[in-house]
């Protein structure tokens, strides 16, 4: 029973980590309909930049963080300027391909600028097992995962408020509904895109910090994008709470599957289990759990 509880908690916390990456996807998809495959590499790039600032320039943590946020905003501006602006009004698949190209660019640039070796990231986040839970209840829970869970929760609340209550949030939703209509009521599409990509960049930075502290900054970090995709399918591409709930379901489902089904079929099923789970969900709700219902007219 204790083992089951431990597996569940570790699944839940892993799910929050997936959800952090999925959040960035949702933001960009919500505000521009772009399926941003580069989100995982953005997390890698942000992590690399942070480590680079700290190790090579000897910056203190707070300054490195601020500088990295600056870099991600600059990146968002560049992406809008050089890529999105030129591809306005193209089909979704073309924009998706452009983000695939962006994936290569960021991956290559990160390696050129900061080197391709595995780097340790330590910005003072608590690590190791939580003593209180271990001593009191015999539960092994990583402190870092608790921090990640809390951060994820806080991010969702902030983003939800940002989207629902602020002027910019309203503009973002307007752009998501209809680009042209938003333009015609005086919303500046380019600014909106820069803002959204910046926010996605900051979310990527948070994801990069969490994953990087856990397992070091390395290329495999960009592959969590592939883990975030089933989370998105499950939660719906347009729903911020969906990303979190989807992440939790995938995280727990994956853990249980690996422990209880894995040994029967030879293990290492976490690669595809999440996708199959999401696929099953989709057969009943094609737009994901919290996605907007697609109304089709001729």
């Amino acid at each position, binding site marked *: 029973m204790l083992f089951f509880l431990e597996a569940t908690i570790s699944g839940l916390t892993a799910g929050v980590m997936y959800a952090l990456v999925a959040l960035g996807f949702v933001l960009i998809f919500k505000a521009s309909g772009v399926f941003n495959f580069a989100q995982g590499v953005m997390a890698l790039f942000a992590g690399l930049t942070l480590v680079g600032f700290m190790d090579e320039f000897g910056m203190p943590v707070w300054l490195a963080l601020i500088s990295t946020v600056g870099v991600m905003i600059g990146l968002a501006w560049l992406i809008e300027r050089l890529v999105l602006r030129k591809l306005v009004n193209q089909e979704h698949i073309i924009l998706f391909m452009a983000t695939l190209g962006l994936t290569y660019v960021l991956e290559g640039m990160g390696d050129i600028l900061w080197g391709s070796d595995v780097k340790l990231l330590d910005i003072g986040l608590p690590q190791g097992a939580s003593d209180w839970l271990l001593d009191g209840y015999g539960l092994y829970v990583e402190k870092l995962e608790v921090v990640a869970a809390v951060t994820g929760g806080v991010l969702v609340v902030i983003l939800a408020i940002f989207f629902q209550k602020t002027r910019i949030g309203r503009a973002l939703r307007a752009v998501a509904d209809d680009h042209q209509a938003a333009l015609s009521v005086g919303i500046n599409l380019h600014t909106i895109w820069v803002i959204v990509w910046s926010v996605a960049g900051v979310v990527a930075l948070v994801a990069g910090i969490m994953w990087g502290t856990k397992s070091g900054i390395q290329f495999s970090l960009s592959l969590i994008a592939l883990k975030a995709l089933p989370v998105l399918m499950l939660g719906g591409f347009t729903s911020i709470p969906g990303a979190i709930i989807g992440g939790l379901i995938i995280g727990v489902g994956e853990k249980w599957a690996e422990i209880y089904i894995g040994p029967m079929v030879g293990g*290492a099923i976490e690669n595809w289990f999440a996708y199959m789970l999401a696929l099953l969900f989709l057969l009943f709700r094609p737009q994901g759990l919290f996605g907007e219902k697609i109304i089709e007219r001729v």
Partner: protein
Amino acid sequence: MFYREAGQFKTSYAADQGLLPIVQDRWFVVGLLLVAFIVVPFIGNDYWFNALLTPFLIYAMAAIGLNILTGYCGQLSLGTGGFMAVGAYATYKLMTAFPELNLIVVMVLSGGITAAVGVLFGIPSLRIKGFYLAVATLAAQFFIIWLFNKVPWFFNYNASGQITAPPSEMFGIQITGAEANPAITYLFTLSVVTVFALTAKNLVRSRAGRSWMAIRDMDIAAEIIGIRPLMTKLTAFAISSFYIGIAGALLFAIWLGSAEVTEAFGIDKSFLVLFMIIIGGLGSIMGSFLGAAFMMLLPIFLKNLFVDGLGFGTGFAEHVQITLMGVLIIFFLIVEPHGLARLWQIGKEKLRLWPFPY
């Protein structure tokens, strides 16, 4: 001046509906095929065949397959690598289980098996659309790769986990195996690809092809005018997978000779083929060839430029190359989102008027 169709009159429906209605096009294609079949095998060397021409043809085959599904039927798929693996492993199992079976028969059967698998994974396409479907096809990709990696029956319980094509002959000439002549394997691949490319070209002009395009352009409207969406989508999945399966079979049996599933058919192969059809042109058979050529030649060109030309270290050159690939892909999408096939079409329009601008 040279490319002008004035005076070429059609006097029958058959002539009007011909595959290449313009005489110049006909001569160009016939000439190209003659050169590819007769001249190239004699002037080419082993490097050309092994590193350029054979893989180009194989990837063009895979690109045609994906183009049928994505370009013509509008169903975005990221499972290409997995379906190629199905073709390769089906070929391996058939070749080792029935050694006397003709290679062509083996390949067609493997294509059939891949088509069946493709249909299986295509079933959700009726309910799931767009990017949701694309991510769903990733499920196929990961599941298939995992299956071939974990279940020893698929690689005949050998220790390395690799599959190796046993030598096989056709008309007394060896085609697969280590001793096969590169020129011969090139000719074999070329014949297969030519036959299937012509079939595909005709297929997309047929009733089936027009149904696919109707579904792609607006599926609900197509349904209203009497096209059955499930049947149409599933035939697209079947035929597309058939082509991709044969491409996988060729890749494994003819070109590589032996393969390891995660390395040869990973997710990056799915993206590579997707790049090919987007750069080449969605919904164009010729675009599949152009895209395959572009994506095959570009890395070789960049590698030569950076390592041999500018003298960078291989590690650094690789990073620069990855970055540049990304930049070029984005650049290309900005300049011509409809791909190389569209550029070719524009070129032909210009040639038709040349030397006058209007």
